[in-house]
């Protein structure tokens, strides 16, 4: 019960904190709309008009990853800059449980990106949005959020030890969009990239949302996304233990 309370309080705090950050509001509000407009005109100019609606959904989901990546990467850096990282590490609950709601909160706000993008494309470009499985379309985004948050957690662990790890978040936006097939089908990419995509939970989460909208079996994708998320928790737990110990040994926790 105390763990549930910790997760809930952390989640609510994180959402409130992020909605007061101008830079984060840009990432989760303005950037997705720019990308939605860009992809609309790009696909509209193309020779495959049937891909326009596919790209519309993809653009919305891209925004969720952007906000997750940006805020998960920043989760630990911001604590460090504010001088609260040492206090959080020293607190009785497992540090992983303190950080997870922070990444979950970032991914949750990303839901706004999806909603805003779909509304934007419906209102301004007249794109229809009629999910084949409406109920599953309600279920699959939270699963995607969970998968993204778990991946964000793994990324966040590196920030405990490496002060420059936010360079990683500067770099990872486009490659993850590519290898998870969020907007470009994996079949168009070199074969080896599919292997990377398969071990990324968001690949399956994106697929679940896509299948809920365009048709297809959603449950296997949801299952894979949840299973991989569980694996990420184990990986993050191990890495966090190692990184936290090394940061304590080297006395680098508070170094910004």
């Amino acid at each position, binding site marked *: 019960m105390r763990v549930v309370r910790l997760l809930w309080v952390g989640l609510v705090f994180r959402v409130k904190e992020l909605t007061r950050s101008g830079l984060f509001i840009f990432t989760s509000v303005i950037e997705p709309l*720019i990308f939605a407009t860009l992809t609309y005109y790009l696909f509209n100019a193309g020779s495959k008009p049937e*891909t326009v609606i596919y790209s519309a959904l993809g653009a919305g989901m891209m925004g969720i990853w952007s906000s997750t990546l940006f805020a998960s990467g920043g989760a630990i850096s911001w604590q460090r800059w504010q001088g609260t990282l040492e206090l959080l590490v020293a607190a009785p609950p497992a540090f992983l449980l303190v950080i997870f709601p922070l990444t979950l909160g970032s991914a949750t706000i990303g839901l706004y990106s999806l909603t805003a993008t779909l509304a934007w494309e419906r209102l301004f470009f007249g794109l229809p949005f009629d999910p084949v499985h409406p109920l599953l379309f309600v279920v699959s985004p939270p699963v995607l959020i969970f998968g993204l948050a778990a991946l964000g957690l793994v990324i966040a662990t590196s920030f405990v030890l490496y002060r420059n790890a936010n360079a990683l978040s500067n770099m990872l936006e486009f490659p993850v969009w590519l290898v998870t097939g969020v907007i470009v089908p994996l079949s168009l990419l070199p074969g080896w990239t599919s292997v990377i995509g398969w071990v990324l939970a968001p690949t399956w989460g994106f697929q679940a949302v896509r299948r809920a909208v365009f048709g297809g079996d959603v449950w296997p994708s949801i299952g894979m996304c949840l299973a991989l998320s569980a694996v990420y928790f184990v990986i993050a737990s191990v890495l966090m233990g190692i990184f936290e110990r090394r940061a304590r040994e080297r006395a680098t926790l508070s170094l910004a």
Partner: protein
Amino acid sequence: MTSLRIFTVGGLLSYRALFNWQSPTYYIPTMLAHPVFQILFFAYLGRFAGTESDSFFVVGNGIQVCAMAGVYGMALTIGGERWTHTLGSLLATPANRAALFLGRALPNVANGVLVSVFGLAAGRLLLDFHPAPGSVPSIFLLVVICTLSCSAFGMAVGALGLRFRDVFMIANPAYFLMLLLCGVNVPLDRLPDWMVTIGSGLPLTHGIAAAREVAAGASLSSVSTLVWKEIAVGAAWTIVAYVLLRVFEAEGRRRATLETV
């Protein structure tokens, strides 16, 4: 002579002190890997949409990534003075303002050219982009011109950092809107007229159009109109940036907000 020293030595020192991504652990992922992934992403997006060739996206994005240095770099360099609390001291000096701020642009221009050249070379190696060897010097010249005009625009963005506390609130939309409005990824004739009008006043739009023609085999002289337009846009943004810097400096003194973080 003093202005020349402020322009060169001051600019270099400022770059070393305030450009936060100099360390290889920052520079490689942010300034080299990110642009390459951007080029790959849009090239594959273009293949899927059936819009244009790889060459279209490599040239467009390969040149646009100079904005990593031109826009973000300038924002960091000028906005960084506020974060490090050196802005007040800097503006208390009697130094020539043009030399002071233009000097800060020069290292970012060099960096932007490097980023773009790296991006174009990566596009040549990884995608279907094979410009004629004879066109390479002309493309390089266009990259330099585009980076100069983009840095002038970045200086205007950085100037807003004298007025607003978080300069990235302006730099981020500026960077991403360039992807949409400058013909980087969408042919200009497929955009609404009002977007084309805005785009024609932004840096890179004319330079990218010229570079695409040169990469396709045209001579530099045949695209001279586009080149001069790009230079004119860059010159106009330099004037805008200078005016904004002076206005915000005066306003910052009047409102005592130069050191507000």
